[in-house]
């Protein structure tokens, strides 16, 4: 490893240095270099203590936390595929089928997203921003498996250009880029993003059709349209339900959440308050269920509050999306408000509007917009409090 490092320093580095031929591509080289090795940057000016954990290391931790959901998602896709066409398959076959479906999505997501980032870096001549590392992994995980790859690529391009570069790149975006990609695909190609046909691949094997009476709707979709679901809460907790690639298994998500909380990268305040928000809204619905307008809605409202938490993308959104440090609230008190409203609105949207069963996406995007407002009021309240304290002291 050391030899490789030295080789790069001595032979590759001069190629991209100032004044050399490939100077223009310095950002690209620098991006790869700092991805592989911790850069030896030191702070200039006054004394600083620098942590070895820079943005790239943070991103890598989040990606590690996403791996359980990715692996589980691969297996889940294969499992449902073979179930739907009525063929028995071994665990390995199921996993392999899913991997063949998911890996191209990940590759396309990274290729398009990083390609655009590199392009902007070279044009603007600044360092590569590593913000896309996490988004690139999140995007395939929140898309249905059968989404055509060019639609995925277009959504990624939209998210990176309109969601991020327009605002000035990583750290400046007001919306979570991964969710923006999903929202774009959701509104642009609704037939590929919702309904009961897209969540399970039934076309992978030549000549095979879905067995009779087969329904590919997600648990949430079934509740929204009929008020009952063939999947139990335990199924949803383990994750053997149809859904977007990585969102189904609450166990896998909890593994990731554990790592994020242990390393302190995600805010426990947001996660906790979002769950509380979801529970509160679920309890309210349970209480007002008899007042519902239709029988289906009544059944959906009566779903126990804890079951609401394990269905759909709620857990995934709360753990990986709501805790995005850029688009969320910055103040500690604000994080409680921000998280609570995400949980509250997610459940509210999914129950009240069956057309948008994935309420958590819209709730987080909405709260991204509101986060600066929340912060503003938190700061103002603090200023007022301190002013009062000061006034009291001067009076005494």
């Amino acid at each position, binding site marked *: 490893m050391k030899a490789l490092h030295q080789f790069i320093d001595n032979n590759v580095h001069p190629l991209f240095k100032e004044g050399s031929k490939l100077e223009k591509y310095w950002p690209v080289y620098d991006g790869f270099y700092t991805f592989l090795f911790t850069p030896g940057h030191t702070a200039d000016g006054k004394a600083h203590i620098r942590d070895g954990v820079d943005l790239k290391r943070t991103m890598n931790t989040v990606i590690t936390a996403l791996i359980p959901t990715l692996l589980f998602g691969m297996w889940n896709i294969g499992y449902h595929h073979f179930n739907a066409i009525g063929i028995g398959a071994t665990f390995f076959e199921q996993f392999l089928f899913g991997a063949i479906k998911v890996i191209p999505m990940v590759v396309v997501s990274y290729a398009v997203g990083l390609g655009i980032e590199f392009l902007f870096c070279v044009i603007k001549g600044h360092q590569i921003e590593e913000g896309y590392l996490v988004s690139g992994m999140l995007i395939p995980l929140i898309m249905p498996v059968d989404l*055509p790859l*060019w639609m995925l690529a277009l959504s990624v391009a939209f998210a990176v250009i309109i969601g991020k570069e*327009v605002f000035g790149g990583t750290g400046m975006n007001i919306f979570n880029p991964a969710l923006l990609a999903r929202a*774009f695909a959701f*509104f*642009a*190609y609704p*037939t*590929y993003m919702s309904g009961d046909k897209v969540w399970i691949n039934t076309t992978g094997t030549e000549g095979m059709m879905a067995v009779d009476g087969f329904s590919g709707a997600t648990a949430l979709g079934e509740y929204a349209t009929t008020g009952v679901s063939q999947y139990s809460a335990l199924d949803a907790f383990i994750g053997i339900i149809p859904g977007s690639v990585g969102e189904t298994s609450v166990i896998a998500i909890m593994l990731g959440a554990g790592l994020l909380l242990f390393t302190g990268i995600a805010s426990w305040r947001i996660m906790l308050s979002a769950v509380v928000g979801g529970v509160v809204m679920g309890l309210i619905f349970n209480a007002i269920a008899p007042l519902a307008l239709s029988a289906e809605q009544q059944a959906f409202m009566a779903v126990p509050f804890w079951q609401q938490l394990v269905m759909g993308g709620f857990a995934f959104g709360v753990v990986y999306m709501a805790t995005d440090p850029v688009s969320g609230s910055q103040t500690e008190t604000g994080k409680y408000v921000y998280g609570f409203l995400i949980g509250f609105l997610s459940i509210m949207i999914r129950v009240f509007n069956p057309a948008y069963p994935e309420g958590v996406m819209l709730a987080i995007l909405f709260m991204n917009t509101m986060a600066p407002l929340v912060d503003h009021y938190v700061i103002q309240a603090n200023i007022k409090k301190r002013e009062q304290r000061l006034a009291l002291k001067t009076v005494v």
Partner: protein
Amino acid sequence: MADVLEKKEEAKELLIDKQPKEPLLSKKNRKLLNDPLNDNNPITVQVLGICSALAITVKLYPALVMSISVLFVMAAGNVIVSLMRNFIPNRIRIIVQLVVVASLVALVDQVLKAFVYDVSKELSVFVGLIITNCIIMGRLEAFALGNTVWKSFLDGIGNAFGYAWILLAVAFFRELLGSGTLFGFQVIPDAWYLANGGFYSNNGFMLLPPMALITVGIIIWVQRARNTKLIEE
């Protein structure tokens, strides 16, 4: 004494004659026409008239009809107000302008209903809302009230074209990507669609108003990147 007076008269005449008569399309006048197309575009630079730009750009044809209607109202309104500019009492000038624009819009509305009923139905309330289009009131107030008839006419036409080309550009992309058609004719081959075994699907987001806003935003972005005059410090 008489001699002196005569000479004075002559001198006056000479003076008047010597003042060059401005050609119809002098440099200044051409600027009135060209400026709103790019450097001072009513939509992308002044950010006026956004409301209708978002609402009626789903298809090219309604956008074209809207552009022509605005062109007519703007040119005629500017001319009429400019003709009356010396008689309008300052205090009620807004009311007078409104009456002028409203009667012109009523005229346009009736013509549309008579000849292109479908489009008129599609544009619905937005024809009536031309009255409140900020570009029109803005030009009447800022230009026609203080300038001659010909200049006001040019200014009206220039701004209407500035409005129209943005409208048509936005509608072009929205119709092409959202419906796969241009002026109602299928442009993207039928065989490309997934339903027919192809790979393509129309982008439904393009049909929703947010995408119109984003399209206008991208046009502003490209324009500012190319036009150095618009770059703010």
